[in-house]
């Protein structure tokens, strides 16, 4: 039986449809909830979020993977109501965006405890919400190198992925040698890992995307839409043409490479602890990216591979 955990319960892989594999309902660094400058009423939050998800659904989007980790404003009850009311499947993450977003309780925890926590959120549920995690988020802290805490989180994630069969999704793919060494030591096949943000403006030059692919990892071009052409681009923005060419070069770069690649927009429906980027939404996938790919000569089969088949393989719980 093929299955994937969504916040409303398991669904068959066949129901996922087109997947936005690295998105956020709302992201905020831990502690941002103390700063009233970011507060929004529930009316505002639903008002900013529901139309984007409904539009996503109308465009033919099936599943929204929320890559917001523990301590970053992840809110399963809220995601459940959004999913139920819009018809979009939402997959939540356990794990952390990076060591620098893990609060002191988890910073002090052992690898064994972290793994147990992740497994609990995947198999039993997240808090009292009843929703289960469908993916494990890990990441590299600010500064460009994996910290000791980052490494403990990666190791715990590898163990939890092996124990439960869900995949691991990374924030940044820099310092991949250290990451892959940990996954190898823990015996996690690299096709269970999506190495994300290989395309962002700060780190693309430092990210060994083809090397990671050669090792067997999946590759996430998942910051599409953060463009220097925007009126107020974030520091990780990149020229639109440059990112697209990077993507096309990558999938043309080797036999079967297209089977390893996933794409997403990493947009916030309603940011929690930062201003967000005006005009950038998950629907960049439909409004800009897929048209750009078609214009570049990709056929419908290739588009289905990138947005439907590859995410289905990655997200399906392995037994």
């Amino acid at each position, binding site marked *: 039986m093929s299955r994937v955990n969504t916040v409303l319960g398991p669904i068959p892989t066949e129901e996922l449809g087109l997947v936005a594999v690295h998105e956020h309902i709302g992201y*905020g*660094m*831990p*502690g*941002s*909830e*103390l*700063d*009233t400058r970011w*507060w*929004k009423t529930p009316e505002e939050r639903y008002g900013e979020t529901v139309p984007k998800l409904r539009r996503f659904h109308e465009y033919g989007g099936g599943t929204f993977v929320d890559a917001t980790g*523990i*301590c970053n404003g992840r809110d399963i009850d809220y995601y459940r109501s959004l999913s139920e009311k819009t018809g979009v499947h939402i997959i939540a993450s356990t794990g952390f965006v990076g060591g*620098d*977003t*893990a*609060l*002191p*309780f*988890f*910073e*002090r925890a052992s690898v064994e405890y972290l793994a*147990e*926590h992740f497994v*609990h*959120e995947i198999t*039993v549920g997240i*808090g009292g919400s009843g929703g289960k995690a469908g993916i494990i988020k890990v990441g590299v*802290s*600010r*500064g460009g190198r994996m910290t000791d805490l980052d490494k403990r989180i990666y190791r715990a994630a590898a163990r939890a992925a092996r124990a439960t069969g869900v995949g691991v999704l990374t924030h940044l793919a820099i310092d991949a040698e250290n990451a892959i060494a940990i996954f190898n030591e823990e015996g996690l096949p690299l096709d269970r890992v999506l190495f994300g943000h290989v395309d962002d403006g*700060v780190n693309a030059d430092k990210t060994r995307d083809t090397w990671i692919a050669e090792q067997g990892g999946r590759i996430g071009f998942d910051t599409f839409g953060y463009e220097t052409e925007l009126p107020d681009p*974030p*520091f990780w923005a990149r020229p639109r043409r440059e990112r697209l060419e990077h993507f096309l070069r990558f999938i043309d770069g080797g036999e079967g490479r297209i089977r390893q690649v996933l794409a997403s927009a990493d947009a916030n429906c309603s940011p*929690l*602890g*930062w201003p967000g980027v005006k005009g950038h939404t998950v629907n960049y996938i439909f409004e800009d990216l897929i048209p750009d790919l078609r214009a570049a000569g990709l056929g419908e089969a290739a588009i289905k591979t990138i947005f439907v088949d590859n995410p289905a393989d990655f997200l399906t719980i392995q037994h």
Partner: protein
Amino acid sequence: MPGAQTAANATGGTVNTVLGPVPARDLGVVAVHEALLSVLPGAEYAFDVTIDRAEVFEILAGKLRDFRERGGGTIVDGTGMFHGRDLRLYEALSRTTGVHIVASTGQGPEGLLGGYFLTPQTDPPTPWPAEKFADLFAEEVTEGMVVPRVERRGAAGLVATAATREGMTATDESLFRGAARAALATGVPVSLRHGNDAVRDLEVVLDEGLPAGRVAVGGLDRADAVASGAPLEIAARGAFVLLDCVGTEDGGHITDAERASLVAELVAAGHGARVLLSSGATGVAKGHPANEVGYGHVLTAFAPLLKARGLGDEDVRRILVGNPRDLLSVR
């Protein structure tokens, strides 16, 4: 907004409690540095940590009633804004038990901050400077303490912060300077836990122009602090000497007998108006070990030791009532 009265509409001689400003003369005996619900940041998300509010309430109400029966009037929750502070629970506890509850703003040390303050989404990710902490803390006095992403409630009664035990970091210094500026702007005091050099840490907040009489320096019953002579030096500079682990005898601290001698020594040196006592008890602890000493320990177990050292009733009352009243009165 219930309970949203702030220092701005309070007149002199009042203290900010979670139920609003209270005349300072009504505080009675004050436990000036305790914890009600104490949650190590992040523990609230842990799969094996349960925070049953009804149960927490029952436990805390029992401890507060015990404190009241022993003669206590006011509890100061010194855990700041990011260590389990639960304002609606504290309001209900205060209404139910009749004990005044003063809650604190502030954070620290650096190791207890969220990533929002340490690695913000800017390039480079520069930690927050003093000025931003000052605004964050001051607004919790002038506009009310936050229930995260929901509302503001009553005014904070003090700013609590701490330095890293191994020594003040650059971000700790920003916290201290921010705390001092918030105190200057709003009239509430600063209660700080020193790192490895109490006098130097005090000097950081004094350097911001905060009068020493608006500062309580905690951690001064730690064995290392006492060995360095810090308590007398802090008192000589005019700040409050806060022995905040009364009842803890763990090797890292002096014993209660030694604390009593230290207090007698401070009083004899003319610093009776600068001594504060508290137990640093944790009513309910989540994600870290509790300090199970009762809130009433100072009153019933420790005060007799002071009298045995020759302190009179007036001396003891000044330490338990007058000094905390002077500290907590909004200026």
